[in-house]
C-alpha cells in the first residue's frame, strides 16, 4: 500500500500558488494513472492535473482554495507498493558510462526537471529552510535549472526588499486576483531591478496604414499587431546580442526571438508569446496570435505560451495614446509601446503635407543594452516599419491607393522602356524586346493585347458553355497576327475537348464572339483620351 501526494504543480516561472478550480473526480473515487482529476488555475493559465498512479483519491483542498506550489491538493493510495517504482526525484537519468577518454572531459550533466518539485542543491535546500524561503518561489539562474544557494539568497533578498517598499497589508479593500497579484509583484521587481531607458521614435506610417487597410479589408491576412510582431522580431534577429536577459554577473542569451503581445482579458492583462517569431511569416504569426488571443481571453493559456519573451509589444494606439514610458516585463530586455496611428502635418520636400505617423516608445533594460545599441535597434525598427509593405505578400498592392475595377496605374523608370502596370489587385510588367531598345522584362504591349484577346475569347467561350450547361474540358487557343509593324490581321484558332455533341459545342462560338469584350474593344472607333502633364525634375 503506498500513498502518494498529488501536488500543486508549477505552471509558470512566477507561479507561487494555484487555485483548485474544479474537482473532476469524487472524493474517495478510484482513479487511473493519467486520469485528469482536478482543474487548477494559476495566475495566468488553467491546467488539468492528472493522477500520478492508480488508486483511491482523497481530496485535501476545496474548490477555490489557494495552494502553494509543491503542496499536496490530494493523496492517491494504491494497493500495490510503488515506493521503488516511483522514486522520481528529478535528478536526470544516468548517462551510459563512457568507455573511453571523454569521461572526465564531459561537463556535469543537466538536471532534467521531471517533477513539479523544484530541483535544488542540498545546500540550497538547507538554506531555504533556515531562511524560510519557499523553494517553489525561487528561480534558478543556471542553464541546467538547478537552484543553488545563491538563488535562495537572491530570493530572500528580493523578499526583504519587497517587504520594505510594498504597501502594508490592510484588512479592507478589494483583494487582488492571482493575475493581478503576480503582475504587481513582477512589475515591481522589474522596475526595481532593471534601470529603464525609453527611446521615442516617430515612424512614417504611410505603408503601415496601407497595410493595415489591406488587412482590414481581408486582402492580406493578419492585423497591424502581427505586422509589428514580425518587424520587431526581424529587427531583434539582426541584433542577437540584445536578445538576452540580465543574470547578475553575466548576460544569459535567450534561445530564440520570441515576441510577447499584451492582451487584455477579463482577469487582467496577460502577455502570450509568439515563439521564434523571426522565422514566421506575417500570415503564420497571424495564425499564432489568433489562437493565443482566443486562449488568453478564455483564460486557457498553457504555461508554455506565457513568459520568456525577448520583447513585448504593447499597442494602445486604439485609445489615442501618443506615447508612453512603459515598464519592462520581468527578465525581458525590450518592450515596444505602440502609439496611435494618426494623420499629422509633416514637412516633405520643403512643403507641409498630410502624413501618417505613429510614435514608438521603446523601453530597454539598460543593464543589458547600452544607449547606442538601443538607438541602433530603435532606428532599425523605425526603418523596418516604414517599409512594412515588404513584409507582406503582394507588396505592391497594399501601399497603392485603391484603384477602381477598370483603373490602371503604369510607371516607367527613367532610362528604360519597361512599364510597370498595376490594377487594384495585380501588378505586371510590359517591355520591348532588346532589338526594339527594351530590356525584355515582360511581353510587349501588342502581344499583351493579343493575349488579352485570346484569353478573353477563351473565357467568353467557357462562360457561354457554362450558361448552356455544355460540358467543356480543356480549351486551347492559337493566335497569329501580322508579324511586324501595324497589326492588319489576326487569326485565332480555338480547340476544345468535350464530351458533348460537336454541333452543340460549335454553337458556342457565336455567343462567345458576341460577349468577348476585348474583341468588341478592338474596333477603330473606340474613343481614347490621352492627356499629358509635365512635372519639373532635377537636371
Amino acid at each position: 500500500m503506498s500513498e502518494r501526494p498529488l501536488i500543486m504543480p508549477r505552471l509558470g516561472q512566477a507561479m507561487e500558488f494555484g487555485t483548485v478550480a474544479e474537482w473532476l473526480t469524487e472524493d474517495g473515487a478510484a482513479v487511473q494513472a493519467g486520469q485528469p482529476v482536478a482543474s487548477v488555475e494559476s495566475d495566468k493559465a488553467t491546467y488539468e492535473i492528472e493522477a500520478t498512479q492508480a488508486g483511491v483519491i482523497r481530496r485535501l483542498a476545496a474548490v477555490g482554495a489557494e495552494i502553494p506550489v509543491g503542496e499536496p491538493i490530494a493523496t492517491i493510495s494504491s494497493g500495490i507498493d510503488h515506493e521503488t517504482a516511483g522514486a522520481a526525484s528529478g535528478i536526470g537519468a544516468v548517462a551510459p558510462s563512457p568507455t573511453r577518454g571523454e569521461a572526465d572531459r564531459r561537463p556535469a550533466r543537466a538536471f532534467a526537471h521531471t517533477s513539479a518539485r523544484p530541483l535544488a542543491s542540498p545546500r540550497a535546500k538547507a538554506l531555504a529552510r533556515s531562511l524560510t524561503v519557499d523553494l517553489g518561489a525561487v528561480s534558478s539562474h543556471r542553464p541546467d535549472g538547478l537552484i543553488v544557494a545563491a538563488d535562495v539568497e537572491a530570493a530572500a533578498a528580493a523578499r526583504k526588499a519587497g517587504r520594505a517598499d510594498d504597501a502594508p497589508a490592510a484588512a479592507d479593500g478589494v483583494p487582488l486576483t492571482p493575475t493581478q497579484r503576480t503582475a504587481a509583484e513582477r512589475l515591481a521587481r522589474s522596475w526595481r531591478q532593471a534601470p529603464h531607458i525609453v527611446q521615442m521614435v516617430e515612424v512614417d506610417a504611410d505603408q503601415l496604414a496601407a497595410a493595415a487597410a489591406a488587412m482590414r479589408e481581408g486582402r492580406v491576412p493578419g492585423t497591424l499587431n502581427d505586422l509589428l510582431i514580425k518587424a520587431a522580431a526581424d529587427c531583434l534577429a539582426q541584433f542577437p546580442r540584445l536578445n538576452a536577459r540580465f543574470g547578475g554577473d553575466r548576460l544569459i542569451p535567450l534561445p530564440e526571438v520570441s515576441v510577447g503581445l499584451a492582451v487584455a482579458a477579463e482577469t487582467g492583462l496577460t502577455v502570450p508569446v509568439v515563439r521564434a517569431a523571426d522565422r514566421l511569416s506575417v500570415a503564420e504569426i497571424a495564425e499564432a496570435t489568433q489562437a493565443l488571443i482566443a486562449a488568453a481571453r478564455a483564460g486557457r493559456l498553457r504555461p508554455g505560451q506565457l513568459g520568456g519573451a525577448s520583447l513585448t509589444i504593447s499597442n494602445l494606439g486604439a485609445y489615442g495614446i501618443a506615447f508612453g514610458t512603459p515598464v519592462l516585463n520581468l527578465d525581458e530586455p525590450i518592450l515596444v509601446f505602440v502609439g496611435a496611428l494618426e494623420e499629422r502635418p509633416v514637412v516633405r520636400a520643403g512643403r507641409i503635407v498630410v502624413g501618417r505617423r505613429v510614435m514608438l516608445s521603446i523601453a530597454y533594460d539598460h543593464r543589458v543594452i547600452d544607449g547606442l545599441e538601443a538607438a541602433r535597434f530603435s532606428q532599425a525598427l523605425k526603418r523596418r516599419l516604414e517599409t512594412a509593405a515588404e513584409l507582406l505578400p503582394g507588396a505592391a498592392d497594399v501601399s497603392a491607393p485603391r484603384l477602381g475595377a477598370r483603373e490602371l496605374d503604369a510607371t516607367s523608370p527613367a532610362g528604360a522602356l519597361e512599364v510597370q502596370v498595376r490594377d487594384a489587385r495585380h501588378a505586371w510588367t510590359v517591355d520591348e524586346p532588346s532589338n526594339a531598345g527594351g530590356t525584355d522584362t515582360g511581353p510587349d504591349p501588342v502581344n499583351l493585347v493579343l493575349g488579352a484577346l485570346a484569353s478573353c475569347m477563351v473565357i467568353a467561350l467557357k462562360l457561354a458553355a457554362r450558361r448552356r450547361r455544355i460540358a467543356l474540358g480543356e480549351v486551347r487557343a492559337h493566335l497569329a497576327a501580322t508579324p511586324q509593324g501595324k497589326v492588319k490581321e489576326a487569326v485565332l484558332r480555338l480547340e476544345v475537348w468535350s464530351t458533348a455533341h460537336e454541333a452543340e459545342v460549335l454553337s458556342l462560338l457565336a455567343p462567345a464572339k458576341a460577349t468577348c469584350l476585348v474583341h468588341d474593344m478592338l474596333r477603330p472607333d473606340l474613343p481614347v483620351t490621352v492627356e499629358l502633364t509635365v512635372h519639373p525634375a532635377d537636371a
Partner: protein
Amino acid sequence: MREITYSKALNEALDEALAEDEDVIVYGCDVGRWGGIFNITTGLQAKYGADRVFDSPISENVLVGAGVGAAVGGLRPVVELQFADFLLTAGDEIFFKAGMWRFMHGGAFTVPLVVRLPSGATGAGPEHSTCPEAYVMHSPGLLCCVPSTPADAKGLLKLAIRSDNPVMFFEHRRLYQTRGPIDDAAAVAPFGKAAVRREGRHATIVAWQVMLNRALKAAETLAAEGLDVEVIDPRTLAPFDFETILASVKKTGACLVVEEGYRRLGVGAEIGARLFEEALPYLDRPFRRLAIPDVPIGSAPALVNRILPSEDEIVAAVREMTR
C-alpha cells in the same frame, strides 16, 4: 630561507636519516654506485658505505620482500623501485606482507619499511607512467605519502623512515627539478594533515603533486575572473585528512578533485563518496573529478598530454561548476 630542488630535498632526507640512525639502509637498482637513475641517492654510498647503500638485482618482488624481512628483523630499509608502476609487480610483498604482517602476527613486530615510488607520466609508456597511489589508499596497513613541495619531500621522507609502519612514498618524476623554499628550523607537519595551499570561497580543489601546480595556476586565472578557489594539498593519502576538505567544502559548497591517477575508483571517487556521506547539506554544486580516463597511458607526448588534466580544463571545470 634557502631554496632547493625536490630531488635534492629527497637526497638530504636520506642523507640525514642515514646519519641519524645506523639501522637505516638504502638499496635498489643502481642506487649505489650510480646514485640512482634519477640521482636521488647520489653520493650516499660514498658517504655511508656499500653495506648500507647498495645496488640490487632487478626483481621488485624480491627487493620489497627483502625489505619486509629486514624491517621485521629490526632494520629501517628504504627501497627504491624506479617506477611506481612496479608497486603491482611487488604486490604480494607490499599488500600482503608489508601491509598485513603486523596485524597477522598479533603485533609481535613492526614493519618499518619505506618503498620509494617515482611516479608520473613522462612518455615512458603504459607500464612506466602511472600514479598508482589509489591502490595504496585502497589497501589496509599501508601509509601513503604524496609530497608536492621540496619541503614536504624532505620532511615526509624523514617521517616515513622514522615510522614503524610501512610507507609507500610517491615521488613525482616531473617534480624532481622543481625548486622551493625549505625552512630547516621549521617542524614538519605530521602525516594526515593537509595543507591549504590557497584560500578561497567559491570552490574547493583537491590536488597534489603536478596536478596541484596546475590547480594553483588555474586558481590564478580564475581569480582574475573574480572566482576565489581554495586549493588543498592532502600531502598524505593514508592517513587522509578529510576534515580539512570538509571544512573547506562547508565554506565553498563545491569540490573538484584533480588527480593524475585513473578516474574510476580513484582518489577522487573516495573523496566524492565521503562528501556524499558527510557533507551533503553543504554541497551546492555537483561534485566533479578530473583524472586520467580509464585507458592505458601512451608513450607519445601528444597522447599523454591529451589525457592528463590540463590547467585549461581545471579552469573550465571550475567555471562550469560555479556558474
